[in-house]
């Protein structure tokens, strides 16, 4: 990758500082017109708010203009973990569950659908791709309305209607959103339904890059379709897979609309994730310090978890 090398002139013989400064300045002058606005926008609307949040996480913060906002050290951080209802721990647990459950399913569905659609005899590939991608371009709010509607409790929600009335699989209508596990299942299904299409499309692009010769050779050796899949397709797609998984993990870490629009964190605040918890703490209970502390901790964790992989794959986009 070019990035790590970028600012390092040939190791060993360093040019004198003045020359380097001059060169650096010249380079900056060349690039500045291009990146100035972008960097400025990011600094003002992304980086600055984050720095401000770090400050707020150490304050007893009130949003009133001219409020005092005394610094309270790590109090907000401590209270996040000494809360009697373990809200933060619950949210961490849910976040981990979200990753463990949705990432493998999402990945498997994506690669299987992509491989099947890519098979030589399948017609209307573009139609399938379009249909699979539809949920991705649909707004979260609308899909949330839809899922709440499909999973409505009682016998007239569609899912209950099918599984209870028509098929008789459920012994009684399920109140999906009012029990912890069923609510989590709805959240997961919502997420998977909404995002599988993305993985399918990425893999379809990746598959088109694999030369047919490999398969032809395998065919001559008499390898079955499933063997070909595991021995050729999967390894050849490894870089794509890495990219997909990093994005899926990052997505699963950041469940917010999934929770906010479906369960509001209920029942009993059990389905909260870290982003939804911090949002509600800030805007419902005015605990901005507490919310910021959670945000900071989460940022550090996600950064540590994904940084190393990101460095390897994050800037490697496929065509």
């Amino acid at each position, binding site marked *: 990758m070019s990035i790590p090398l970028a600012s390092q002139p040939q190791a060993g013989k360093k040019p004198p500082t003045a020359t380097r400064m001059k060169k650096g300045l010249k*380079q900056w002058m060349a690039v500045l017109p291009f990146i100035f606005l972008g960097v400025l926008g990011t600094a003002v609307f992304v980086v600055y708010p984050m720095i401000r949040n770090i400050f707020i996480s150490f304050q007893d913060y009130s949003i009133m203009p001219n409020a005092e906002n005394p610094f309270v050290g790590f109090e907000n951080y401590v209270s996040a973990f000494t809360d009697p209802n373990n809200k933060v721990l619950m949210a961490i647990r849910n976040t981990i569950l979200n990753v463990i459950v949705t990432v493998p399913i999402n990945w498997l569905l994506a690669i299987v659908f992509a491989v099947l659609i890519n098979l030589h*005899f399948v017609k209307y590939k573009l139609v399938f791709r379009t249909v699979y991608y539809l949920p991705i371009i649909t707004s979260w709010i609308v899909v949330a309305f839809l899922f709440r509607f499909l999973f409505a409790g009682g016998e007239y929600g569609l899912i209950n209607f099918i599984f209870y009335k028509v098929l008789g699989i459920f012994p009684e209508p399920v109140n999906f959103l009012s029990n912890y596990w069923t609510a989590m299942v709805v959240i997961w299904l919502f997420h998977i339904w909404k995002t599988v299409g993305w993985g399918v499309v990425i893999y379809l692009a990746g598959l088109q890059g694999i030369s047919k010769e490999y398969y032809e050779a395998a065919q001559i050796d008499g390898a079955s379709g499933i063997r070909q899949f595991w021995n050729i397709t999967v390894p050849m797609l490894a870089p794509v897979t890495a990219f997909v998984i990093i994005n899926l993990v990052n997505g699963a870490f950041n469940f917010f609309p999934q929770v906010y629009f479906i369960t509001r964190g209920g029942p009993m605040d059990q389905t909260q994730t870290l982003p939804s918890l911090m949002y509600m703490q800030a805007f419902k209970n005015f605990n901005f310090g507490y919310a910021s502390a959670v945000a900071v901790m989460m940022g550090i964790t996600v950064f540590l978890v994904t940084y190393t992989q990101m460095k390897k794959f994050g800037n490697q986009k496929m065509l």
Partner: protein
Amino acid sequence: MKTKWYLQLLVYTVIIMGALAFLFPFVYMILTSFIKSAYSLPRPKEIFSVVPNLDNYFLVWNKNNFARYFLNSALVTVVSMVGSMLLGCLTAYGFARFQFPGKELLFRVFLLTTMIPGVINIIPQFLIIKNLGLVSTYWGLWLIYIGGGVVGSTFFLRGFFQSIPKEYEESVLIDGGGNWRIFWNIYLPQSLPAIGTLAVLSFQGTWEEYFTALVIIKDEAMRTLPIALLMFNDKYATNYGWVFAASIIALIPTVLLYIVFQKRFVQGGFNEGGVKG
């Protein structure tokens, strides 16, 4: 070589089932939007036997200022999409083609910001807009959407820009053209599919954005479409026919845009390109 017919059948069954799983909820939503019942959960039997009609669509279009909010959203979205594209292309070009001290650091800071959830940034962002005197103006929204979206589009585009062979630049350099000419004559035309894709993603991200718009826009007449959608979710009871008719109207522009562009669609992270917020 010919694949056995039963294998073909199996494969088709699986992918058609998959397609139905994605399509069916939309169909059910469209059917529900034809229902004229009052505030109660429509029964599946009613839904499957409904006669298609556009009554709810006309009703919704004239309700809660829906039509005006639709146009407002179109304005907000198109401008911020154009702005995002412009800024994203410029920044990505800078990062893809130039060497300069501190580039790695800057890039890492960009990377870091993508990992922290943005929901908590609304208040500081709002305070900045307020200090600029732009509360309740579209300029305020545009600044946040464009400024907040640069990182995503930069990441998305930089990869494409990097894959453009250096040799292409030579003809421009020989003609005596500079960096701007290379940007305009080589990089942009070479990456059009990527830019188009990003445009669709950016459009979608802004079109459905709710939290920032709610906080920045105080004037009822200037609200955007997602707010109108949530206005249909009444305090006391929900009329599903209206909610879904409104939802479908709201979906039409994005879906159309996608279908137009989709042949040339390219890929990037699904968290990118949209607005962080």
